[in-house]
């Protein structure tokens, strides 16, 4: 499976949401990392044929996906950021309906739905209405619907948004398990979501891909160094103004800061290994301080 994005651009009036993106994807997990409004959802919607690009093409194994139409969507599984469902449907009914919409043969559909319900851990609530499920359960039903047609291309837009840490870890493991032999594109603004499962990470900002590569490659691409140092509490604000702070940990009368900087911030600062979170802060600067990106 090969997806090629060539000069992909999407404009909404004067606003360019996705700007001339050229990428190639084959089987594996791709993490699309960026702050809110970076253009991740627009890019994914184009990949799901929900939006037509203003210019550029998306080809699947050499064929334009919009020309392929239902033949392309047959290969596709998609979990959108705002996962909408039919509140009065039971989990089973919901999946049976989506299965019909995906053209799964009626003879296998019941078995497939049952298997997936078990796989995502919803067997006990299979006959419960969707509206009665917790946020995590709804997301699991979402991933189940995306997997119904055993897609070759799985696109997950912010799949862990709004989930508690337990659910997020569970969800991450589930995605990892499902990612074998397929192309998975997962967008998030939460670094830990993709840190352990993505083979390649794309950093997206203002509609453009700033950088792409493995975690090591991204870390190596940083021209600044990561430091840790203990500073008195009353000096923290000075450091925050001067440096990019990727972490703070309070100790007695002092605070342990994790700083990204070219220069050694204080004499007692220790050089440490950079993490993906540091890369995120490095590339996305002050916006990394948004509450949604705190993780």
């Amino acid at each position: 499976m090969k997806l090629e994005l060539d000069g992909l651009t999407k404009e909404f009036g004067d606003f360019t949401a996705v700007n001339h993106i050229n990428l190639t994807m084959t089987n594996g997990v791709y993490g699309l990392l960026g702050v809110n409004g970076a253009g991740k959802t627009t890019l994914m919607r184009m990949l799901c044929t929900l939006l037509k690009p203003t210019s550029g093409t998306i080809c699947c194994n050499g064929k334009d996906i919009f020309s392929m139409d239902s033949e392309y969507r047959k290969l596709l599984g998609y979990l959108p950021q705002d996962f909408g469902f039919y509140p009065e449907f039971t989990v089973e009914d919901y999946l049976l309906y989506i299965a019909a919409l995906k053209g799964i043969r009626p003879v296998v559909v019941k078995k497939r739905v049952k298997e997936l319900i078990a796989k995502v851990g919803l067997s006990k609530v299979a006959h419960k209405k969707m509206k009665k499920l917790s946020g995590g359960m709804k997301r699991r039903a979402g991933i189940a619907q995306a997997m119904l047609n055993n897609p070759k291309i799985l696109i997950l837009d912010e799949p862990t948004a709004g989930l508690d840490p337990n659910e997020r870890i569970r969800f991450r493991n589930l995605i990892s398990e499902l990612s074998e032999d397929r192309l998975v594109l997962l967008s998030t603004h939460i670094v830990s979501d993709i840190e352990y499962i993505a083979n390649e990470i794309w950093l997206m900002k203002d509609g453009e891909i700033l950088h792409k590569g493995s975690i090591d490659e991204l870390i190596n691409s940083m021209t600044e160094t990561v430091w840790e140092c203990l500073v008195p509490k009353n000096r923290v604000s000075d450091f925050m103004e001067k440096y990019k702070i990727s972490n703070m940990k309070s100790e007695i009368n002092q605070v342990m800061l994790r700083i990204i900087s070219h220069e050694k911030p204080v004499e007692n600062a220790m050089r440490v290994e950079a993490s993906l979170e540091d890369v995120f802060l490095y590339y996305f600067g002050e916006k990394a301080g948004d509450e949604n990106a705190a993780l």
Partner: protein
Amino acid sequence: MLRYEIKKVFSKSKNRIAVIVLFVILAITSILTINRVEYVDENGNSSVGISAARDLREAKNQWAGYLTADTLSKVLEENRTINSSKEALSDDITEQNKAYAKKQGIAGIMDVIIYAFSDYRDYNYYVTDQISDDEVGTIYERRISTLKNWLESGEERFTQAEKDFMIQKYKELKTPFYYEYMDGWAALLQNISTFILMLALVIGFLVSGIFSDEFQTKADSIFFSARFGRSKGISAKVGAGFCIATGFYLMFVFLYTFIVLFILGADGANCPIQLDLWRSVYNITFLQAYLFIVLGGYIGTIFAATLGMLASAFTHSTPTAVIVPFIVLCAFPFLSRIITLPGLCSFFPDQLLEIYLDIKEAGLITLGSKVTTIATVIVPVYAVVCLIFQPILYRVYQKVEIK
């Protein structure tokens, strides 16, 4: 897929409430219709309901048969006898009611005689006093001559072709009329248009969310990214709208008809509509009139529902889609009352639900050299429009982009 689309509609509580409302409307309209048929017993007391209908049927069916000169003469004689009875001459209302009780069997025939001997748009109750036994057999000829006199009076402006059409239709009517108790059908036809209007509005409400709810529930992304989201999925939606509209329409019209005719009786189905609607240019029976009204109502309902679904697909808004059937079926007739749109109002879609009025007093239209009634034109025209709308609805939804 179709099953799930229908299930989506009825899983919504507001739609379930709408169905309950429809049953309430059915009950109220049925009661009002049944109460139209009244019987006065020999003591002058009036009653409604099953027994009243049964007694009235018994009284009227004593006179069942063709309305020949001989029968009409006997009816006239019977009327004179009752009118000269001491009950009829009494000033006491109860006594007069007792006299009326005796007249109920011939009341329908007397109406025909009165209409025949009155001016075209008149109902002169006292005209019976002036009719001789020899004259009364001429009611069918008088029907035609009264029309001719009216057309020549210049009260209404008709073209010569239209005049010829009406006269021709009057002449083509098969006579003598067959008469029997037909009050069940008459009551049914009088109220069915109102019932169909309410039915069409509720059906419009039910189908209004079929297309827009995908956006309201944010299920649109998954729907359109699915393999058949832009093909069979849409066909299922169009099909669900059609099935719900058709199913509900037929079911409730059948229920209404069944309740009314079960209680009031279905006799008279093959009697000419002129027994109740004397001036009608439609040479049809009560049953044919009923089927025509139901067909017109069905096309009107499908038209309003399709427009609602089209608005739903265009605007992605259920409230907007709900309003459309109201505009089409209720605002148009209101508009025609405040704005003078000569002729045009007769072609508004609300007229599909008013076929009864067209049967009663037809509007005419000239197509090339051929004159016909408006209802016979708008029913097939709107049926074709409905058919044309279906692929448009499909295409509008197919082209949707999720921004």
